[in-house]
């Protein structure tokens, strides 16, 4: 048996260069006064970092994963189904894990007091959803396609349509907030938030895929969006993996 001082912990691997955005990114003006300028200090992965909140069960209401049924009437806009798997870098599903989303309505307006752009609020749409992944790591939301909206970052700036995703994974090291985009959006080229990801291929991993199998006849268009979190260093866990299989 491992003694308290000799235990082995999971080790979450380094992510490839260019996967995540730099904290300071001049194209996105709000980073200017908010990004740390001192070097980050390496925090070794110890107990607090390889554990994390396992939340979800008990946190969900009946219509939390169907944003079109949270009011008396249906929201305006194109009904869509967004589904995908929450996986770690080794392809393992992250099960029973909370997925939270928020988004603008079909006209590109958020139900937030700070959003003043002159597109109307939709009385039948809050733009907030929660789901729990199943035993395969899969989550599913029914919602409407969010609209693009202008912002003041640069001249004639528009955010491509997107849905904000927040996931926990199994450990503090895996916590991720990202945005899901839609295929072939003409606004990508001028969006500094999308383009802050240095690796072009990594950028494409934020773009959902239209899926005709998910699309439901005479009801809703379907999109697939898998979310991949950091994997565990395989060498550390080789033995355990073999035992599991």
């Amino acid at each position: 048996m491992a003694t308290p001082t000799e235990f082995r912990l999971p080790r979450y691997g380094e992510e490839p260069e260019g996967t995540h955005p730099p904290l300071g990114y001049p194209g996105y003006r709000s980073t200017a006064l908010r990004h740390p300028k001192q070097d980050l200090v390496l925090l070794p992965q110890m107990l607090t970092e390889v554990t994390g909140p396992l939340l979800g069960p008990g946190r969900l209401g009946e219509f939390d994963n169907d944003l079109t049924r949270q009011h008396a009437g249906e929201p305006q806009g194109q009904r869509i189904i967004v589904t995908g798997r929450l996986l770690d870098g080794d392809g393992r599903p992250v099960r029973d894990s909370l997925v939270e989303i928020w988004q603008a309505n079909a006209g590109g307006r958020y139900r937030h007091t700070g959003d003043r752009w002159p597109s109307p609020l939709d009385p039948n749409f809050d733009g907030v959803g929660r789901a729990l992944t199943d035993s395969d790591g899969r989550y599913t939301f029914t919602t409407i396609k969010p609209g693009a909206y202008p912002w003041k970052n640069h001249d004639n700036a528009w955010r491509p349509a997107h849905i904000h995703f927040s996931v926990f994974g199994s450990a503090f090291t895996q916590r991720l907030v990202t945005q899901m985009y839609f295929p072939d959006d003409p606004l990508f080229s001028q969006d500094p938030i999308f383009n802050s990801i240095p690796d072009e291929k990594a950028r494409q991993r934020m773009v959902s895929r239209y899926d005709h199998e998910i699309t439901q006849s005479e009801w809703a268009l379907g999109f697939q969006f898998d979310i991949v979190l950091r994997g565990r260093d395989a060498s550390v866990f080789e033995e355990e993996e073999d035992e599991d299989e």
Partner: protein
Amino acid sequence: MTKLLPTPSQTVGPYLSIGLPWPDGPHVVPEGTPGAFWIRGIVRDGNGDPVPDAMIETWQADPDGGFRHPDDPRGEASGDFRGFGRCPTTPEGTYGIHTLLPGVVPGEGGTAQARHIDVSVFARGLLNRCVTRIYFEDQDNSGDPVLATVPAERRGTLIAAKTEDGYRFDVRLQGEGETVFFRV
């Protein structure tokens, strides 16, 4: 084993407060829990101005140093201590987390870590979360292996000061007294 490439991080943007806060988010433990206290602070930017659209998340051991998590090789802690706190900042940039003092947690190679809480800071203008740690000024932090790697003149940014109802822990994202942030 299949290697999959990770999904990139993106900013929470200006409207996280419609999606992420929970009514019980700031309460790691409920009001009235014996020994519970508030950690309060302000998040400030490079000008020293409050950040009204940030969110603080905390993760910590229970008072005995245990984690309710299957990857704790000492065994999963029993009890219902959530360990997790979440609080968006107010228009004045303030936040509060109601919790219990975490226990001592073992570190690497037989060391013991001082009592600490891991923190993620999210905000508009942060393309990725910023990770920091809270330590406590009235606890013994002398042997902590993480603090030892932080330049001595910056360690103070990680140490919460005692207050009437708990502790104060301000976050300075940039500039004078910039908080120490970690790469995990």
